[in-house]
């Protein structure tokens, strides 16, 4: 009988020469990806961490048992009820955005498992698909039962099946990243950019935030997922190295495009969680500090490793670290009923902290929060006044990222109108327009929420839009966590206070 060291190399490399079909028929460029190269160019594809199926199953079993044990110990509803309200709403964001996005990762990995250009790559992608299936099941298992506590947790299952504006944006992103993608672009965009660049480190950061917030169940879940990510993220590196060797310009384009697309979604999910939905005394760092320490440095090292340049929009991105997620949060707060989780207004202590962390543009953001607070002060707190402190005109969305036109600064919004093939498009930023113009055939026919309203596909009136198109109900649509009843607001109303 062969030892592991003898049979594993044989099992990993099971490619053969085809006798009755051509190689480009077995691996068509349209689905395997470009540059199309003969297998001789891929045969040295090598993963740095090698595993067998048996080892994989043993490891995953141990990890699942550890998650289950923590869930049994601290994952009951009474434990979740003890969490701070803002953090509970950060959980709702992740409960909705994470599980079925991971499921699209199953599909992308299965594409690699069939159309990856070397058998070792295909084997690793098979494990990657199993990982992502696990990352779908665990959050569904942990979050959906919380429906008994709070009906907004229903969105763990529901989110991606709705036409909620954020779901439209998230689907636009994940459908392109994973579901409708060829194997080469999938593995570079997902493994190198999303996982190595963002989520692998984001999960470390999220675990630390969860620990600070005493949410040990979420901490364990993301830690467990992160260990899988760290393993399967390596698939993309030898793929990128080969593309870099044969078509460096295309490799640079893929990295630039996907870093921007990831940044857009990531800054909302993580930026809002760190800077607004974590209690002030439990924030270990600001989102900007987290980005600079964990994401930016690591990404620059990855670029160096492959001989890639910084993306052309680098300075713009660094500038956005100071403002983009703040613009989004204030906009989303004022349209909170269009989402499935609740929001909190930053009070004087939070605003002082935010000013310290984000001195560059905070004056402009502070004026916005002052105005919103003033409205609550005028109408008074209470659930009945939620819509008196809510936007009424339809907010607008980018034709590429599908997110609100909230880029630039309050003084100068960077949205730009562009005519392509006789049709008018609007983009939140130059990089979003640049991506669109590189592959217009991919994006041109997608309608953002505004175009759907204008074409009669979605209702124009906000109440109908919320219930008929965004699938929200009075129970589930977003509110202010305190319905505007903040001690600091009350104190200011009383001039003697």
């Amino acid at each position: 009988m062969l030892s592991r060291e003898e049979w594993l190399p044989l099992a990993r490399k099971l490619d053969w020469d085809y006798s009755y079909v051509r190689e480009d028929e077995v691996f068509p460029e349209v689905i395997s990806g470009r540059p199309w190269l003969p297998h001789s160019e891929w045969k040295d594809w090598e993963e740095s961490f090698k595993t067998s199926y048996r080892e994989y199953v043993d490891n995953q079993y141990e990890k699942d048992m550890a998650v289950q044990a923590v869930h049994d110990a601290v994952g009951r509803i009474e434990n979740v009820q003890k969490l701070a309200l803002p953090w509970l709403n950060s959980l709702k964001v992740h409960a909705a955005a994470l599980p079925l996005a991971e499921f699209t990762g199953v599909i992308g990995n299965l594409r690699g498992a069939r159309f990856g250009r070397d058998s070792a790559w295909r084997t690793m992608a098979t494990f990657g698909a199993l990982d992502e299936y696990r990352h779908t099941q665990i959050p569904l298992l942990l979050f959906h039962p919380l429906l008994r506590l709070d009906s907004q947790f229903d969105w763990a299952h529901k989110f991606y099946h709705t036409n909620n504006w954020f779901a439209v944006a998230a689907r636009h992103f994940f459908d392109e990243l994973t579901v409708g993608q060829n194997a080469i672009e999938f593995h570079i965009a997902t493994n190198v950019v999303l996982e190595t660049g963002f989520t692998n480190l984001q999960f470390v950061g999220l675990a630390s935030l969860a620990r600070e917030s005493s949410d040990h169940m979420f901490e364990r879940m993301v830690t467990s997922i992160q260990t899988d990510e760290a393993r399967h993220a390596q698939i993309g590196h030898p793929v990128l190295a080969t593309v870099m060797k044969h078509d460096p310009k295309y490799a640079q384009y893929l990295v630039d495009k996907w870093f921007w697309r990831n940044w857009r979604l990531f800054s909302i999910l993580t930026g809002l969680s760190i800077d607004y939905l974590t209690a002030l005394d439990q924030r270990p760092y600001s989102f900007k500090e987290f980005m600079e320490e964990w994401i930016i440095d690591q990404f620059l090292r990855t670029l160096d490793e492959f001989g890639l340049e910084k993306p052309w929009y680098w300075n713009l991105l660094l500038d956005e670290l100071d403002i983009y997620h703040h613009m989004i949060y204030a906009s989303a707060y004022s349209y909170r009923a269009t989402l499935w989780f609740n929001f909190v207004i930053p009070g004087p202590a939070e605003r002082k902290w935010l000013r310290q962390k984000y001195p560059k543009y905070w004056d402009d953001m502070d004026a916005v929060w002052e105005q919103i607070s003033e409205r609550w002060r005028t109408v008074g707190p209470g659930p009945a006044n939620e819509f008196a402190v809510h936007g009424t005109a339809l907010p607008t969305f980018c034709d590429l990222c599908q997110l609100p036109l909230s880029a630039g600064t309050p003084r100068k919004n960077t949205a730009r109108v562009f005519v392509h093939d006789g049709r008018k498009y609007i983009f939140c930023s130059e990089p979003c327009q640049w991506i669109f113009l590189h592959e217009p055939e991919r994006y041109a026919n997608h309608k953002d929420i505004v175009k759907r309203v204008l074409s009669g596909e979605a209702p124009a009136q906000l109440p109908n839009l919320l219930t008929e198109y965004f699938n929200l109900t009075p129970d589930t649509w977003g509110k202010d966590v305190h319905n505007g009843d903040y001690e600091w607001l009350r104190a200011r109303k009383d001039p003697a206070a």
Partner: protein
Amino acid sequence: MPIPLYGFLQGDTVGLLILAEEAETLQALARKLQDAASLRVERRDHVQVVYNDKTMDPTMTVAQAGLQALDRFDVLSG
């Protein structure tokens, strides 16, 4: 028939869809945007309407200014 426009009020955090009438003045259009954004931005009396990088005469109508469906206009502090 109302003309859908992308309105950006200086000081605001998001662009808004504003339905304009051909015959209304740019001053009225600016007021419409200010009202729509009043939850986030304090209303100012003196503002300028900017379209295609040009500051427009506020007494002009939407039609005279040449604003077309899905164009961008900005309202800046005057």
